């Protein structure tokens, strides 16, 4: 790809749109999440501010903006401030290669999925920095859990995606969508149901969502790695957590659910509908299942997901050879 002024302008506009998407997504998802939680737990959820409580999330974010930036004693101030910024910045980069529509791609990278997987690792580093720098036992424990969890769940996630890459013969996200058809039975979820399942479980683990929210388990560790953060520091972590959720949902939609292809008319609306369906599934999962214990979490990964994903990869390779 050549670097021209037009390309540069395109990337800048894309970054601005992505920031808007991230913030809008956080506001909408907080509302959906709290309403869903209320529905599942037989309580109304937010209903005071605005019609049916719709402005509640905006008021909350205003409150976060106005809060004092508090630095606890004896923290490593450089790392303490670096951590939320490091959580937020790479997410911008991660959205660039996602094909929202056939022509709606911010940056056409040939190794798009590799870019996403590579820079997603920076999020873990921000978590462990936050936990370590805030000079807090809860924070440190949360950081230790974040390390073990994300290193473990990254492997079956990559293996599951690799099975689809085998089928498509390409690391380019647009090409992977192009290989899938319009109708649901032509999507990769039909050809790779096991990979889709493994990917879904590991994405819950990677984004630290319940039932795998061990790094920030509020009933054990107050808030885990971000215990000492308030105001904008917390807001940045919060924003990046929801943006990460959105990102893995988009990757799920692209890899397994046909991306921008769908019945009647292809287009970016299908990507968004599918991604938000995955998001709602994650929210539903959070309020339905209790949190697993830490040894259970690691056992699920190392004893089930990893062998299954290796098996899946192996079977995929053999079948592909036979078809050839």
């Amino acid at each position, binding site marked *: *790809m*050549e*670097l021209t002024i037009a390309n540069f302008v395109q990337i800048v506009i894309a970054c601005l749109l992505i920031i808007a998407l991230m913030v809008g997504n956080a506001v909408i998802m907080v509302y959906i999440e709290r309403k869903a939680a209320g529905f599942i737990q037989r309580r109304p959820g937010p209903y005071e501010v605005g019609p049916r409580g719709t402005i509640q999330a905006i008021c909350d974010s205003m409150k976060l903006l106005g809060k004092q930036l508090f630095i606890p004693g004896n923290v*490593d101030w*450089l*790392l303490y401030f*670096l951590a939320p910024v490091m959580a937020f910045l790479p997410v911008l980069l991660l959205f660039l290669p996602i094909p929202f529509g056939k022509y709606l791609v911010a940056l056409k*990278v*040939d*190794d798009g999925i*590799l*870019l996403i*997987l*590579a*820079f*997603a*690792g*920076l999020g*873990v*580093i921000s978590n*462990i*920095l936050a936990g*370590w*720098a805030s000079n807090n036992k809860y924070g*440190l424990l949360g*950081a*230790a859990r974040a*390390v*073990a969890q*994300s*290193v473990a769940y*990254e492997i079956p996630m990559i293996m599951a995606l690799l099975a689809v890459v085998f089928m498509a013969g*390409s*690391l*380019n996200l647009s090409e992977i969508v192009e290989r899938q058809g319009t109708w649901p039975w032509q999507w990769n979820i039909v050809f790779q149901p096991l990979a889709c399942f493994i990917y879904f479980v590991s994405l819950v683990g990677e984004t630290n969502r319940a039932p795998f929210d061990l790094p920030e388990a509020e009933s054990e560790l107050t808030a885990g790695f971000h215990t000492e953060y308030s105001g904008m520091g917390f807001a940045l972590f919060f924003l990046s957590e929801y943006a990460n959720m959105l990102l893995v949902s988009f990757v799920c939609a692209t890899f397994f659910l046909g991306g921008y292809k769908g019945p009647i008319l292809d287009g970016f609306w299908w990507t968004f509908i599918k991604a938000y369906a995955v998001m709602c599934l994650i929210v539903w999962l959070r309020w339905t299942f209790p949190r697993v214990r*830490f*040894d259970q979490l*690691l056992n699920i990964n190392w004893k089930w997901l990893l062998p299954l994903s290796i098996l899946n990869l192996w079977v995929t390779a053999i079948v592909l050879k036979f078809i050839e």
Partner: protein
Amino acid sequence: MDQAIEKILALIWSPFNALEELIAEWLPGQEVAALIAYGVYVLIILAGGFMAIGSRNLIRAMIGLVLTFLGVAGLYLLLASPFLAFMQVLIYVGAVCVLIFFAIMLTRNTNEGEESKLPGIGSALYGLLAFLLPLAVLGPLIVKNVPKLTLQSYGQTETRLLGEGLITQDVFSFELISIILLVAMAGAVFLAWRRRPTPEDPPQPKTGSAPSLSTKGGAQK
């Protein structure tokens, strides 16, 4: 009006154009944007390196290491191999550094180790020697064949060629490296392996080692 805007734009661009001409004179055949990117990446690498050796705190040193790895990934991008660049970030930043952090956390007192003191003149000399040796070996080679930096990418052909190379002509070295990794993994499992006590075993005395973060603790009590 249009002419005025053109003049202002020309004024803004003039230092860049001058720089471009200067670079074209010095290093013929190189892209200017790529050279600027090269400068930025080298600065990142150097800053990360100095942060890694200069800071008294192990975690800050690790952040320096992360910066250096990111800069090196940028250099791979400039050599038109995005696959290597992304793998560098994925493996070194996403896995190796995270495991280094884990190792740091298992040892206590990150601020009071041997590294918190400034090194003496002797170790500084050794460090300088260790820095100059690769430079002396590799420097002439690099000066002799300057690689062409580029912001272009050759797309998936690069990844495909790499994969084909690994399973055809370089398959022996590839397998050798996997055996080394396998040995390391088997060794780690062997060192960490402990038989779970059965009810007939006498209760083991508690050792005074540091509390470990291992997940097996609950099962052994």
